């Protein structure tokens, strides 16, 4: 990926066929995931709200993964001046904000019937809200600075600062007493849920991942064209 990001022409050729392919993979995985989702029986404790868990947990994973991609792209752009790294970071931010919003709101829809409240200021929920604010801050900063290079540098620094929040989100349920339950999939002694729930969860997570990959590539392509259009406009004016 880094080799592709260093060469815009190679990236455009690669993404022209890989983005649609990821879109098709995402659609197939989403169909399989939804089928296994609604084939699963209601959970003995959560009842039918287990359906919310599949789309909520996958969105929560993606909110962290996309921010890690944003941080990595920002690092490559800021430190190594990789050609398309800034474009990749800019392209990832709105997608990450979307996944984080999805995680927060579907979490509330699950929490109301299960916990009896829409929201509680526990460490997990609060740290995910902070993650969402980092995404919004990134987008606001990007929109606020006209100079492209200054904007990219400021946004990259903000993105790197925000990386500190990722382990806080992940370990919040271990470091503090939270209403939010602990990890039930990525555990040392294996997943704590039966395959009938694990399969739809992982399939929907893979569908989200493929959708993110496809949309990320499309948005980076748009960013490459935007820059090209601006260069042509400047050349015509000058």
């Amino acid at each position: 990926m880094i080799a592709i990001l260093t060469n815009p022409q190679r990236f455009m050729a690669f993404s022209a066929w890989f983005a649609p392919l990821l879109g098709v993979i995402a659609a197939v995985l989403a169909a399989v995931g939804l089928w296994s989702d609604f084939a699963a029986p209601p959970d003995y404790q959560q009842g039918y709200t287990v359906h919310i868990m599949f789309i909520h947990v996958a969105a929560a994973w993606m909110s962290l993964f996309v921010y890690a991609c944003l941080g990595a792209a920002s690092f490559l752009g800021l430190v190594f001046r990789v050609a398309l790294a800034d474009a990749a970071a800019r392209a990832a931010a709105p997608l990450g904000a979307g996944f984080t919003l999805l995680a927060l709101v579907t979490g509330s829809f699950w929490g109301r019937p299960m916990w009896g409240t829409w929201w509680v200021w526990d460490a997990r929920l609060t740290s995910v809200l902070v993650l969402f604010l980092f995404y919004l801050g990134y987008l606001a900063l990007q929109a606020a600075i006209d100079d492209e290079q200054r904007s990219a540098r400021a946004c990259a620094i903000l993105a790197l600062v925000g990386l500190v929040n990722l382990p806080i989100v992940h370990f919040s349920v271990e470091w503090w007493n939270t209403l939010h339950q602990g990890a039930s999939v990525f555990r040392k002694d294996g997943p704590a849920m039966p395959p009938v729930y694990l399969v739809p969860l992982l399939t929907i997570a893979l569908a989200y991942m493929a959708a993110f990959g496809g949309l990320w590539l499309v948005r980076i392509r748009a960013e490459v064209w935007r820059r090209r259009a601006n260069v042509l406009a400047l050349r015509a004016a000058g």
Partner: protein
Amino acid sequence: MGLDFAAGNYAAYVWPSYALTALIFAVLIIDSLARARRWKKAVETREREAREAGAAAPEDEA
């Protein structure tokens, strides 16, 4: 294995969650594709204008 779309007493929480998921994905997909299409078109337009300006320049000089 049959599909069960029942949500019982939790329908008011389950279906809005799925509707919101569909809405957010629709917004992200439409926005991404529209953005790509808009800037690709802008590049094509400006390249065409640059070519036309280049072709017209020798006549202007003459």
